[in-house]
């Protein structure tokens, strides 16, 4: 029986701390000191700029953004500019690609992330899909979930941001992922009301379990988290 992938909901975590945490978790996974894991967080408003990032996709200047309390962080994931903020479910699967059914196949991994998000949205009656060539999950012409991934030692990190009920006006700060002609939506804007976060996470875990053909355990008891993994997170608690 394949080992279960625990889903830990870490709640609101400052972006930079979560980033340090992820980098540490990758090393631990690569050394087999931690299992494949899906970490769920929520961030304060932040703009992250991926490796394909173009500064012109920031609509406000960096100084201006910082003055408004929005951090701008360059990161190693693929993709352009992404907004994170309250009301999103941000998922960081720290998984060894070799342990997934798709193996060490980068595009397959992206498609699997998309499929899980599509299935999850489907469980709420939303007909979501892909919009090639743009990675991400879309309902009609509007993007509901963004994806950006990095791989180190063949362990994936970064991941996806699903708009459950964020303040959509915050996306005006950027051209999401550099795509200027398409819009952004949230589950709340599409359904008329926001589903409970726990319900979304439960559906998401079920969807990942199907896509990855592994048990996905949500919610995983937090005390099973290796305490060493948590070190970078403790400073804000």
């Amino acid at each position, binding site marked *: 029986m394949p080992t279960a992938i*625990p889903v*830990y909901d*870490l*709640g609101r975590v400052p972006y930079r701390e979560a980033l340090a945490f992820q980098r540490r978790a990758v090393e631990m996974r690569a050394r087999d000191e931690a299992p494949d894991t899906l970490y769920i967080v929520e961030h304060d408003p932040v703009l992250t700029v*991926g*490796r*394909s990032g173009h500064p012109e996709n920031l609509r406000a200047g960096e100084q201006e953004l910082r003055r408004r309390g929005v951090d701008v962080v360059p990161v*190693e*994931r*693929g*993709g352009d500019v992404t907004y994170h903020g309250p009301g999103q479910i941000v998922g960081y699967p720290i998984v060894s690609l070799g342990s997934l059914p798709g*193996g*060490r*196949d*980068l*595009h*397959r*991994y*992206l498609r699997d992330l998309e499929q899980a998000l599509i299935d999850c949205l489907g469980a709420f009656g939303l007909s979501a899909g892909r919009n090639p060539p743009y*990675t*991400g999950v879309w309902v009609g012409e509007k993007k509901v979930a963004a*994806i*950006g*991934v*990095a*791989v*180190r*030692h*063949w362990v*994936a990190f970064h991941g996806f941001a699903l708009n459950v009920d964020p303040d959509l006006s915050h996306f005006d700060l950027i051209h999401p992922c550099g795509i200027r002609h398409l819009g952004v939506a949230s589950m709340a804007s599409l359904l008329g009301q926001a589903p409970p976060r726990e319900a979304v996470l439960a559906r998401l875990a079920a969807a990942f379990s199907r896509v990855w053909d592994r048990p996905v355990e949500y919610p*995983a*008891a*937090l*005390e*099973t*988290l*290796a*305490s060493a993994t*948590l070190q970078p*997170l*403790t400073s804000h*608690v």
Partner: protein
Amino acid sequence: MPVTVVVPQLGESVVEGTIGKWLKKVGDSIAKDEPIVEIITDKINIELPAPSPGTLGQILVPEGAVAQVGDPLGVILAAGESLPSGGAAAAPASGAKQPAASSAGAREPAASRPAASPQPSAPAPAMSGAAASRPSAGTSTMGTATATAPSTDGMRLSPAVRKLAKEHNLDVSQIRGSGMGGRVTREDVLAYVEAGTVAATARVGTMAPPSAQPSMQPSAPRPLAPIPAPSFSAPGSREVEVRPLTNVRKRIAENMLRSRHNAAHCSTWDEVDMTALVELRGRLKEKVKTQYGLNLTYMPFIVRAVTRALKEFPVLNASMTETEIHYKKYYSIGIAVHRDQGLIVPVVHDADGKTIVQLAAEIEDLGKRARAEKLTLDDIQGGTFTITNAGMFGATASTPIINYPEAAILGVHLIQERAVVRDHRVVVRWMMTLVVSFDHRLVDGTPAVMFLHRVKELLEDPESWLLDSI
């Protein structure tokens, strides 16, 4: 020989990638498997690990340029090597799916890679047991591959197949090709290698059973008659039930050992006369039950006594790093909770600012949620000191393990009537043994003993201080 880093196979539909960032500059030294360059495809950025150690000799594709799968990106030089004239003559280093393992196996001298063999557990007899003309996959990594590799010249083979055959030291003419015109494919080679390995293993099995110790056989004396073994056949007599470790158990084990390894454990104890508190709690119990619906235990009183004493002996509420002591100015008390799943320590945050009833409510709630696995991250983090109650199950004393990196832990035990001496007379009092285990690196014996004595004083005379706590 210089090793060329190439764009590896990154997925079925991935034919090319953009060079994101060179993480190493020419001349930088590189450890094996260290990320050296980023390749971006779609929304994934992968850091390519170095196939071998050395220094980065040359960058062939600059940042921002697009490279196809299989394209050379750069050259790694081993110690003492220099770039070959012409620059691009280095051997390609990518394996289709395992760039690191395959290239290292083929090129380095055996002595320099003690742990590189992918089958370190293969028994030595496998060498002699395997047919010489069909070495198993295990033998191909023994460092002789390049010396004895049969020639594949003259055969129609793809570069990948040629390379694979060379890696496994195979004579391709022995392999039946399933490709067009009998051409040998990658799958043919892999199947052949697998069959060879299986055959070799099977033959070893018949020649030398795993339990035999060949090196001892020549000189070993003729064995005596075996001593009759006890019969294990009686049902249940020696039964062992094997269960996998749960994650909770793994974490508990980790944490306990971390504490034992890092802290200098020392324990001291004292006898506490709980008679006054037993009476006080007896008077309040019913009221708290009817008014708040809570079971009033001794724990809230003990927590309050502890936070008061911690303020007087701050080092017991501290923790240490290699260079610093962190004195915490808040008092968040962890309370060890027994559960069937395993021990857990939820935390009452800022316990010094809470009333006895608040503490009773919070402790009860944490215990319930701990057993139901409903604790949040906040509930189990940020403690500064821990209390564990071994008395709940009848223990009269124990030496608890510190909840590292905290400085100390208090063990509370069974409250029982004992005969004690007061004013030269033997009387019956409600007594409890109180133990503090402390990290002797950080906490000297004196403050530990004085802290414990202070907790004892507070518990023995609760009415003197509880008025400002309720």
